[in-house]
């Protein structure tokens, strides 16, 4: 039994729903009690889908148990087939139905429907949503391609002379992160390279499209959490190679182009030449991001402490961007995707941090608090953590909320994706010029501590400690204290703040004050100082540097 307050992933049958809802002409009969239909609202409200997920629930009740629940499955399958006329039918169970063991899949297969019936067995008590999506996608592909698998050892037929290389885009789903736009961006990029897209799946694919998957020359494994299993199966059974690089960020997109060019047997040097790092020109480059990052106004981004948490794919990619393309310092990297824990651990080594592999929201919150980041890149969960801690945040991964499904074109993959990322990550930060002004006018009556950055109204006012001096006091010249010192912290054995030290501390802008306070206290402890004076504060500042 595991105590869970918030969960990053739903149960595996929600992953199956994501696959069914992404596809066309597919229907999913889910053996489930009343209440499980809640999952529909994820699609219609978060993703703003204009149609219901193609899911029929059996809605069994307590009084059906031990008797007619199996009949409910058959009725639901028959009615769903009659009404929706799908070209393939998925049949599975939610957690409760799994316990009553009606074998819905076999029941449905025994009904001799004139379409492929694909039974899904997704263990609800050990697996989660992304695994369920991956497993469902794999079962759909395997079932629909079963009769096309060539004998082992059959060489792949060479591409016809003069035909452009073809690739499948695997893994995009509804309720994924920016899949809708990533797919367009990657398609545009491939077109630029002279590569055609054969099938995009599961997003928008019909069972007929799935049957055409082997016609491509290779697969692009865009979202490994969903498509790695399928890509591996296609590689083993159809000899189709698959990409490994996730094209998120300028550098990764360049690597992706090189990998794709190699798989397609084409020359991509012209495209890559236009996207050299350090190239400042707008005219030759698809990506504005490198120049924006080098523009002097971005100087303030240097070394910003960033904590990254999400699904493995986006977290790993985000860490590389943060370090190499934004000039941030990665102070935390983690994922809730245990299936990809090893990849994240390897990535974390690059940034000298310990990978956080956890789906425990409280543990993540604690880690973020301890790392004292200036920016959190995470899921909607980390957005709430960051809000509570008063730290800037941008969302980079599912689970998402409705505001993370923007109306505008906003991919995160490819060169345009890098542009979008630059904007998205910079906006929540106090802007460089504003930070400069806050420093200059920190004691001004209009710019004092309580006058928050104009674009951060709620966060700055609510989340900060209420220790700020009032405007008049702050505007008064600092006089050396003669009154009894009032310690900030009076815990036993802890250094205490002298009044002048505390007053000086308050002059430090709020967004770095917490860090300054912690550093100074640590410094005082290390040096056995009982009282923190103005001098201690500056000694600590010199000791730690920025």
């Amino acid at each position: 039994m595991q105590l869970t307050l918030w969960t990053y992933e739903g149960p595996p049958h929600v992953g199956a729903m994501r696959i069914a809802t992404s596809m066309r002409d597919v229907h999913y009969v889910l053996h489930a009690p009343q209440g499980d239909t809640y999952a529909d609202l994820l699609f219609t409200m978060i993703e703003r889908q204009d149609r219901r997920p193609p899911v029929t629930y059996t809605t069994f009740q307590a009084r059906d148990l031990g008797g007619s629940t199996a009949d409910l499955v058959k009725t639901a399958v028959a009615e769903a087939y009659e009404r929706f006329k799908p070209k393939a039918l998925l049949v599975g169970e939610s957690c409760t139905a799994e316990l009553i063991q009606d074998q819905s899949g076999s029941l449905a297969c025994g009904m001799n429907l004139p379409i492929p019936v694909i039974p899904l067995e997704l263990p609800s008590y050990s697996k989660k949503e992304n695994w369920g999506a991956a497993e469902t996608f794999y079962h759909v592909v395997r079932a629909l391609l079963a009769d096309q698998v060539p004998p082992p050892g059959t060489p792949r037929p060479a591409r016809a002379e003069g035909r452009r290389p073809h690739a499948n885009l695997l893994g995009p789903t509804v309720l994924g992160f920016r899949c809708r736009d990533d797919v367009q961006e990657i398609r545009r990029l491939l077109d630029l390279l002279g590569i055609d897209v054969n099938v995009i799946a599961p997003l928008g694919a019909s069972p007929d499209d799935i049957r055409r998957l082997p016609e491509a020359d290779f697969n692009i494994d865009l979202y490994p959490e969903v498509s790695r299993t399928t890509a591996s199966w296609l590689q083993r059974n159809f000899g189709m190679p698959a990409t490994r690089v996730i094209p998120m960020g300028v550098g990764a997109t360049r690597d992706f182009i090189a990998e794709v060019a190699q798989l397609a047997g084409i020359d991509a040097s012209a495209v890559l030449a236009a996207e050299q790092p350090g190239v400042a020109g707008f005219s030759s480059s698809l990506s504005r991001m490198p120049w924006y990052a080098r523009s002097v106004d971005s100087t303030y981004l240097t070394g910003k402490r960033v904590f990254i948490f999400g699904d493995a794919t986006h977290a790993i990619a985000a860490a590389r961007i943060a370090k190499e393309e934004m000039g941030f310092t990665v102070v935390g990297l983690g994922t809730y995707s245990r299936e990809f824990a090893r990849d994240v651990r390897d990535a974390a080594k690059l940034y000298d941090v310990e990978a956080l592999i956890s789906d425990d929201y409280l543990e993540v919150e604690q880690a973020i608090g301890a790392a004292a980041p200036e920016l959190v890149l995470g899921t909607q969960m980390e957005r709430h953590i960051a809000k509570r801690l008063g730290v800037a945040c941008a969302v980079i991964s599912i689970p998402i909320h409705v505001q993370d499904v923007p109306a505008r074109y906003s991919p995160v993959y490819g060169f345009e994706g890098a542009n979008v990322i630059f904007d998205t990550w910079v906006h929540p930060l106090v802007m460089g010029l504003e930070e400069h002004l806050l420093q200059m006018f920190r004691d001004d009556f209009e710019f004092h501590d309580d006058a928050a950055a104009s674009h951060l109204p709620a966060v700055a006012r609510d989340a900060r400690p209420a220790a700020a001096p009032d405007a008049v006091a702050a505007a008064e010249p600092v006089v050396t204290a003669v009154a009894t010192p009032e310690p900030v912290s009076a815990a036993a054995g802890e250094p205490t703040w002298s009044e002048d030290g505390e007053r000086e501390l308050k002059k430090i802008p709020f967004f770095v004050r917490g860090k300054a306070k912690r550093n100074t206290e640590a410094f005082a402890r290390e040096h056995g100082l009982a009282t923190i004076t103005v001098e201690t504060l500056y000694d600590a500042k010199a000791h730690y540097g920025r």
Partner: protein
Amino acid sequence: MSNLHDIPVVLSQRSGSDLPVLRERGQREVFCGLTGIVWLHRKLQDAFFLVVGSRTCAHLVQSAAGVMIFAEPRFGTAILTDRDLAGIADANDELDRVCISLLERRPEIKALFLVGSCPSEVIKLDLARAAERLNERLLPRVRVLSYSGSGIETTFTQGEDNALKAFVPIMPQTDARQLLVVGCLPDVVEDQFRRQFEQLGIGPVNFFPGRRAEDVPSIGPNTQLLLAQPFNGETVRALTARGATVLAAPYPFGVEGTTAWLRAAARAWQTPDTQFDAVTAPLIKRARAALERYRPQLAGKRLFMLPDSQLEIPLARFLNREMGMALVEVGTPYLDRQMVSEELALLPPDVVLSEGQHLERQLDRVRAARPDLTVCGLGLANPLEAEGLATKWSIELVFSPIHGYDQAADLAELFVRPLARRERLAV
């Protein structure tokens, strides 16, 4: 549409009313009783709700809570894993462990609800016994209660009914006369009613549930119950079994419902009519004036209510009689005649009532009727909007203060808003 005539219609004659009821069975697009936690934990400020269930349960409560994400909420899920199911871990020991560690971290919690779910019921995990066992260790610091919010037994608002019913055995006995208002009400509404009862000379008045689970009201033969929510039937039956009597009244929605509801208590307390009129007249006048603003926008509009919160029948009565809406179909997850007899008597004789749900057939009827406004759950709202049908999310009716005189116009406005929005938009 074409198969409308295929619908198995069960027409039953009910005593006290000859309204036909269409009973259906099939897919239900309704939350389960776990969802009640979302408002119950806001009301009971010292309580923690621990669902004993699956990841699905956790995901459901979290999704229903929507944006109400708090850093450390007062609800959570003890997720059953393979180890619990395979008997490798003793589920009872595991549950005790989870509860104790939870309470160690949250010393402010005074009441812990163990909430049963579909999986916990199917594996027959006895939460009532678990609560007894934990009470032996934890009382008086924390009281542990248990109830079922499972989808195989409860629908949406029945979760509140079961939660409240769990209190009944521990309610102290009293012979003192009192009015007990039954059903979760927002604090602001509770305070309004308290003032009104005081002005009417009615008292002592207690609200059940109160704001703290610690403060359990007493019950006895001189307790008269005034029902604030139509879905607490089991609780009401348990309270009457302890001697309480029910004051028959419609529910306090709209001016008419609120007046009749207050009057039922006033009669029982023998408040003189002149006093009743003097107290209510200004409130009625103010509420009517506020409603008048919205009436023209709702009058004559055709309303279809899908089954969801059990509030459908009282709300249909309000919208029909006070706002002039025409009722196409009023669905309810289940029809508890005892709880809505006063309401049914106020519905127009030609109303179509439906009980239970066969979602696809009901949506066929919605599409055939093309009502001006459809009240439905969140899973259906956008798809129906995409078909050109205006919708009102029913969940908002459960989360918003809608009872009493001063919320009557807010209630009407909830139905006006989707229509008004469509009129504004030119895109």
